[in-house]
């Protein structure tokens, strides 16, 4: 803590986070070239979420912020989860969308 009460994160931590982020970027590019079936996207997103968490906690001082600020940060992802979750739930439980073609007559046929 500095004298004005704000936590000062040391350059050493920043450099460590930088190294972790660069490593994550390298791994995600290498992993993308291997065929993991449906797990490619899962792995890519897991690495992205990890990188984001590191940026928020350390670069953005989320780890050292007052509880009130942390609550606001978490609320952002909570609203995002509602938007993504409920919309995807809707798409996931509908009948398969028939109109995969640009042909307008095709769309009409399948509306029946």
């Amino acid at each position, binding site marked *: 803590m*500095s*004298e*004005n*009460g*704000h936590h*000062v*994160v*040391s*350059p050493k931590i*920043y*450099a460590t*986070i*930088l190294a972790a*982020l*660069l490593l994550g*970027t390298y791994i*995600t*590019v290498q992993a*993308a*070239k*291997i*065929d*993991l079936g449906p797990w*490619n*996207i899962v792995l*890519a997103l897991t*690495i*992205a979420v990890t*990188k*984001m968490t590191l*940026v*928020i906690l*350390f*670069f*953005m*001082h989320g780890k050292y*912020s*007052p509880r*009130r*600020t942390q609550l*606001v*940060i978490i*609320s*952002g*992802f909570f*609203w*995002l989860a509602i*938007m*993504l979750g409920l*919309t*995807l739930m809707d*798409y996931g439980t509908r009948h398969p*969308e028939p109109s*995969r*073609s*640009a*042909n307008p*007559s*095709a769309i009409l*046929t399948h509306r029946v």
Partner: protein
Amino acid sequence: MHRTGELYGQFKTLDQQKETATLGMWIFLVTEILFFGGLFLTYTINRHQFPTAFGIAGNMLSLPLGFANTIVLIASSFTMAMSVWSAQTSRKKAIVVWLIATLVLGGVFLGVKVKEYKDKFDHHLVPGYHFDITYCRNNPSACGLSGKALDDEKKEVDEAIKVEKEYAQQQGFADPATTGMAAVNAHAQLYFSLYFGMTGLHALHMIVGAGLLLYLILEARKGRFDANYNTPVENIGLYWHFVDIVWIFLFPLLYLINRHLV
């Protein structure tokens, strides 16, 4: 805007004043999360709907340029964090140096983006009348394609056309070959619309960020920021890191998902 770090009447302490400013910045960033979130949602749904066309279109982006830009942007987040540290520890000259480094890296990112956009323009991959997903397949020299890269391009584009043609046949459309081709082009245009929309909005945020950095540099040169007063550096830093986070998701989602098929 208060510039000197004096205590305003509605606050008890400077600490409380600063915390309030940071809280306000975070509330703004929450709206930004949802703003970009809507685009990510649109992308997810369309990608799920048209996996083949999105896959081949995504593989037409330049992986080396996207990878380089990711590194540049992450490095700029580091230099931004170092600007905040310099301000918090009253290193007045270092603040200016780190801020300029951040601005330069941001400029490099935007420069690479311009190059990428220009390539897409030359390769007929900008949505509109001249859009043609087969342009590079049919004019490889114009796109600098040869050897394995050209084979991959042919393999992918032909595969996508085949998939859509089979679908058209299955559905009993009058002219499956033409319909199939039109479908691939339409869906690939959807991908590129989202690509330009999302990276364009991200680039716009970078341009705004560059303007904010310029303001910080001018103020920092006057020696305005120190351990007692650094709220603008801290809050613009938050904004800059947020823009970095958006790219951390854009890069794998736009560039990487179908790379293993090549």
